């Protein structure tokens, strides 16, 4: 396919999204149709592009020397790009219903759609500079979404999000500069681009830079101690929390770290060094920390946000094992977690939308009134815990196998952390399920008489997610095989 197509799929949502507030729509339905058509068309184009990928790269802008904004499709782009392209139209569908009870829908859909293009930019970036460019852009374009409700809480959250992200990006920038100076090229190459001759005896400095860049990008992936923006950003409308703060934005952070580790510094250079130890300990700590906070949290969305923090570090843990198998595990969890968590978030959103209840202790008995939502919530809860037969079991299996195979003592501890986290996940997720389905004796169903399942706009995405979780859980071989090939650099 023509390489220009890469630019098209990035620009189409950005420009099309920018038109949302300008175009004179008569009715809400027309606007919704426009947005959905735009997003769906773009997703089709993305799939067409990724699965007939152009071999050559596309230089969009050439500044000077090897400073370019350039795009290329490789295996990693295919994984992240497909994930985004699959989720976006479904999430948009959900937002139409959800946003009815929020203000300023136009602004919302404008930025929501633009974010799609920017995220694809990260997926398709050919080199570090391009990725950095889109990474910064992502912060800016999602800021209004966090700010959306314009309450004091939202403003504070947005400010925090901005400072954290920009600060992180600054550290990532250090990594960019060092890659440029000490590497052969800025273009992503599996195995790394570092030039041993240029490095000489400055190994330790470069390792330090790697750690800086890791935590820099790690801010978006909410690694401890830079996680506090994420639960706070939960004030945004649910579609934002679900799609951006459980998938697109945070996984862009994880994605960047994969690029940094496997495609810039290279695992040859990093494996077995103190830098690996440092980042691995950070991820292991975050896995347990996120879950523990989730157990204590009583606000549903914030609880899920803490769960995301923990699960993102599963992905990062896979990355820090620094083997192809580790990368496979990380990618599997990146994909599967997306479905599990967006499913859980959308259920939470449906509950909030239908009942106006935001806290876990208010959910008593709702299972009987909103059976579909809670069945799907249960499926995603069980999947997050890692019950065999659902997607979460497979991704944890892959991560654990990578850890066992690496024979690194820290990674054995990591397996322990995964399992402790699974137990805590059971605690904070099943607590909700048990409450909803088994309210205490003498519970008065009259108090929730008006609760009911939402309409198809919300149920359709939820059903799709639940099915995906089950299908991947029962039959994961094709996906895993593809991800293995990506990790081995076949694409």
């Amino acid at each position, binding site marked *: 396919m023509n390489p220009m197509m890469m630019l098209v799929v990035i620009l189409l949502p950005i420009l099309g999204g920018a038109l949302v507030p300008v175009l004179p729509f008569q009715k809400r339905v027309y606007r919704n149709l426009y947005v959905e058509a735009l997003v769906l068309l773009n997703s089709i184009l993305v799939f067409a592009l990724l699965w007939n990928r152009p071999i050559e790269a596309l230089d969009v802008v050439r500044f000077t020397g090897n400073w370019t904004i350039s795009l290329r499709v490789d295996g990693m782009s295919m994984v992240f790009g497909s994930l985004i392209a699959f989720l976006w139209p479904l999430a948009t569908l959900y937002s139409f219903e959800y946003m009815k009870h929020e203000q300023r829908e136009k602004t919302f859909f404008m930025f929501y759609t633009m974010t799609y293009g920017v995220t694809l930019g990260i997926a398709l970036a050919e080199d570090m500079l391009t990725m950095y460019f889109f990474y910064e852009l992502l912060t800016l374009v999602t800021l209004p979404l966090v700010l959306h409700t314009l309450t004091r809480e939202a403003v504070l959250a947005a400010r925090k999000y901005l400072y954290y992200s920009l600060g992180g990006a600054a550290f990532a920038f250090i990594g960019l500069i060092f890659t440029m100076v000490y590497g052969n090229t800025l273009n992503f190459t599996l195995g790394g681009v570092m030039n041993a001759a240029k490095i000489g005896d400055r190994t330790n400095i470069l390792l330090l830079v790697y750690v800086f860049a890791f935590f820099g990008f790690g801010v978006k992936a909410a690694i401890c101690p830079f996680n506090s923006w994420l639960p706070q950003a939960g004030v945004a409308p649910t579609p934002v929390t679900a799609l951006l703060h459980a998938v697109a934005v945070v996984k862009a952070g994880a994605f960047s770290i994969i690029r940094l580790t496997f495609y810039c510094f290279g695992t040859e250079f990093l494996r077995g060094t103190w830098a690996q130890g440092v980042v691995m300990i950070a991820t292991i700590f975050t896995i347990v920390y996120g879950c523990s906070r989730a157990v204590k949290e009583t606000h549903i969305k914030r609880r899920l946000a803490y769960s995301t923090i923990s699960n993102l570090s599963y992905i990062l843990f896979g990355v820090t094992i620094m083997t192809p198998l580790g990368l496979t595990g990380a990618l599997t969890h990146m994909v599967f977690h997306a479905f599990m968590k967006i499913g859980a978030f959308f259920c939470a959103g449906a509950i909030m939308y239908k009942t106006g209840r935001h806290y876990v202790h208010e959910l008593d008995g709702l299972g009987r009134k909103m059976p579909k939502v809670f069945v799907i919530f249960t499926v995603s809860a*069980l999947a997050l*815990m*890692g*019950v*065999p*037969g659902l997607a979460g*079991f*497979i991704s944890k*299996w*892959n991560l*654990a*196998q990578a*850890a*066992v*195979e690496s024979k690194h003592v820290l990674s054995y501890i990591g*397996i*322990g952390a995964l*399992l*402790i986290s*699974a*137990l805590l996940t*059971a*605690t904070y997720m*099943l*607590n909700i399920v*048990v409450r909803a389905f*088994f*309210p*205490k*004796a003498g*519970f008065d169903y009259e108090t929730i008489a008006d609760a009911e399942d939402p309409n198809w706009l919300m149920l359709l995405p939820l059903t799709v997610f639940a099915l995906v979780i089950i299908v991947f*859980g*029962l*039959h*994961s*071989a094709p996906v*895993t*095989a593809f991800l293995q090939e990506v990790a081995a650099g076949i694409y």
Partner: protein
Amino acid sequence: MKETVWVIVPVLIPVIMGIFLLFMKPSKSRKTLLWITAAGLFVTAGLVGYVLSLGDAGYTLFYLTDTLPVFFRVDSVSRLFVSVVTFIWICSGLYAFEYMKHEENNKRYFGFYLLVYGILVGLDFSGNLVTFYMFYELMTLLSMPLVLHNRSHEAVMAGLKYLFYSFFGAYMVLFGIYFIYHYANTMSFTAGGVFDAAVLAENRSLLLAAAFLMLIGFGVKAGMFPLHAWLPTAHPVAPAPASAALSGIIVKGGVLGIVRVVFYIFGADFLKGTWVQTVWMTLALLTVFMGSMLAFLEKGFKKRLAYSTVSQISYILFGLSVLQPVAVTGALLHVVFHAIIKCTLFLCAGAVIYQTGKTKVEELSGIGKQMPVTIWCYTFVSLALIGIPPTSGFVSKWYLATGALQSGTGIFTWLGPVVLLLSALLTAGYLLPVTVKGFLPGNDFDYVSLQKREANGWMLMPILLLTICAVALGMFPNSLAEFFAAFVPQLM
């Protein structure tokens, strides 16, 4: 091995019928509900019987990943466990027809009851470790609604406690599975183990640690010290027939797990004489004694029986831990006998509660005059549990003790039988007062207001049937013993 799809039919049928019951309209009469449940129980039992008659059957359902099959296989251990499950499940199920009249939401109870039955058959038929683990987790999740059935604050808390302890154990097991998968040749259960000797020697300490974690992990379900605390909380709060099923059968899921891991994955030779075996024997004996002691001190009737389970399951675990054929035979015999006996005891306790509402042991004076049949049955199975010949408990304990004496495990050769004896005394101490006080309430007892309150046929029939089995199996243990003699020696 014969590849046949029939193997999964008895797993699916009760699951489907259970789900059907759960989603059935609540307006349907209780009679319909009971007919469906009865049909589910007996059809499944028939199918189980058919599958067992097929001999060495197996079936690969599908692959979770490219190397993880969901695989079923019927071997001798499966036969043993699935027969016990089926027998107890039917008895306790029929009993519940009457008992559940005084509880709400029967539909949910019987729905989950059938579901768990299917899952247990799946657990017993599992042919490899991952399949086993899958059914093990499902068993925990789906049996939880039975625990918290009456939804009182206490019951819900107990249900959650049950869940978290069980998952804690399950994840320890999973930790081990990750390592086994990497180092073993296959995950399919093979008598004698699945490791190459060279691999075992090379990664000895790592694999021993994995084995230890898995023992403790499955030990949670089996109520082994130090993670036994959920059991006396969760079992008594459930409705009596559910307590019977939980205490008789679900805890055996942990035992089955240990049997599978020790004899079919690692192999007994690998663990023999290691620190893992020593710790395991110590924990088992400690639990035997501790459980009996706590039961002796406990006032609540059902809770006392739950502590008794803690103690008795560790008899089984001790029998397995000495890794000696006679003792293992004893352990597996005790699996059968304890299931029958403990189920009867809980059903008797349930009958007492149902008829009189009394839940404390001290309130039970004169109960034998009111419910003579129930308390006679209670007495017979108590004697069996204590191990008085010619009842069944005597046979299994005899094997356990002889096995331990022949095992050559150092101090445990004599310590084991001593602790078992001591615990038998305590067992008499905590079970028989009910009989004694029940029939001989003393002179100051008010005989005038005494009424016959015997339970009706639906409740008495299962109790009688179980009692007869508990006694008769002790008098005619030969066919069982032959069954064991055919496969136990191959495990060592």
